[in-house]
């Protein structure tokens, strides 16, 4: 159907902070302020994964936030785009190789756009989101798996089960966090 072209006219974002210093978060919020105005692209920040298309992630992935990242990522319906904002999210940034970070999110979920910068400026963020929209147009509605799930992971599973907590793919209740 010709509805793909409307995906980029009304992208709703979900903004998640994986342990960042809040610098990139402030820049994202500034991008929604009247000076830069993300809403003119129809972008809304709803805070609800079931209703979002773009997953804006900041922060190097700390251990505590791994599970939540994957939970949120699997809760979003396809088609979706992951945008890694700031150099921490891309490669670990100033926190790279520290004992409690995972050096960016792309070993856990597939990332579509990397936005460098520390902190990434609002203009860069807008450019990155617009690039993400072009990628969004081409995506299908097939379920995208995260690359790594916590807990017992059975590689033979073709798809994830959204009725369970992600990472408990075999249905066993693990102890959470760390």
């Amino acid at each position: 159907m010709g509805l793909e072209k409307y995906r980029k006219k009304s992208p709703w974002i979900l903004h998640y902070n994986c342990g960042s210093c809040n610098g990139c978060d402030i820049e994202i919020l500034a991008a929604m302020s009247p000076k830069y105005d993300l809403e003119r692209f129809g972008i809304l920040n709803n805070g609800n994964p079931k209703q979002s298309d773009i997953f804006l992630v900041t922060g190097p992935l700390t251990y505590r936030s791994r599970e939540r990242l994957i939970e949120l990522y699997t809760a979003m319906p396809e088609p979706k785009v992951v945008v890694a904002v700031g150099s921490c999210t891309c490669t670990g940034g100033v926190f790279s190789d520290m004992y409690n970070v995972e050096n960016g999110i792309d070993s856990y979920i597939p990332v579509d756009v990397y936005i460098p910068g520390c902190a990434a400026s609002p203009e860069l963020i807008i450019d990155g989101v617009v690039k993400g929209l072009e990628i969004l147009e081409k995506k299908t509605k097939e379920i995208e798996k995260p690359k790594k799930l916590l807990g017992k992971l059975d590689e033979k599973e073709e798809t994830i089960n959204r009725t369970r907590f992600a990472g408990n793919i075999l249905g066993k209740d693990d102890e959470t966090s760390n």
Partner: protein
Amino acid sequence: MSNIAIFLLIVLAPIYAAFFEGAQRVLKAKMQRRIGPPLMQPFYDMYKLMDKRALMVNKTHTLFALFYFFTLWILIAFIFLGFNLLYIIFLHLLASIILILAGFSVKSIFSHIGSNRKLLAIVAYEPILLLISVGIYMVYGTFEISVILNTPSQFLSLIFVYFAIILIIPAITKLSPFDAPKAHQEIVGGIEIEYGAIFYEFLYAAKFLEMIFAYSFIYILAGDNHIFGTFLVLFSFLLVNLIDNSTARIQISHMVKVILVLGIVLCSINILGSLLWA
């Protein structure tokens, strides 16, 4: 109004109401000195939602949302057909209860909190809606919308009822300061939280229909002076958005007290006044 016009008005209700919502977002943006989305934005949202992979939590939850939308549409049909005002208010109550049951039918804490706040909101604005109808009855002598719309306008004797309606429109259309039941980011939308993709579209469109319901009370106040009625609706639209942009959300317990006290006082002044100057 000819039958064809009424029929079109009813059937196309979600479509022109969407422009209302689009205009609201543009107005909000302009008040905040920014550009804002294009006017057709609700349509783009709808197409995008239709293009997402569908998901649902359980059957009852989804069915309740669908029926909420259709009950509201039937309510709009009854308004345009000119039914009794009290029936319309109670049918709106039925629609709200369907939405509340939808919120309760999933095991999500935000959904429950949203439903409970919506129940409290009903306790807040339902008495005022009924008293507003009684106020309209005192001046116009009837509850039937079709008769009121053909009676000579007596808006000035309903000025306090007008203020009461402005008081409760934010509660019905989920705007500040009375949007605790929806409370974006505080409870992540309340009842809307577990809806995604095409099923969220029904809730989204239902929001427009609630706007028609709320503003139709203002239109009725003007009696048979339809031009003045339209002007009043536009003016109230501006006023409500101004209030939305300049106030903060208040707690649900304060909301119940504020709406009940202010609303009862305003309506009583109007009703007693209309008796004294009858």
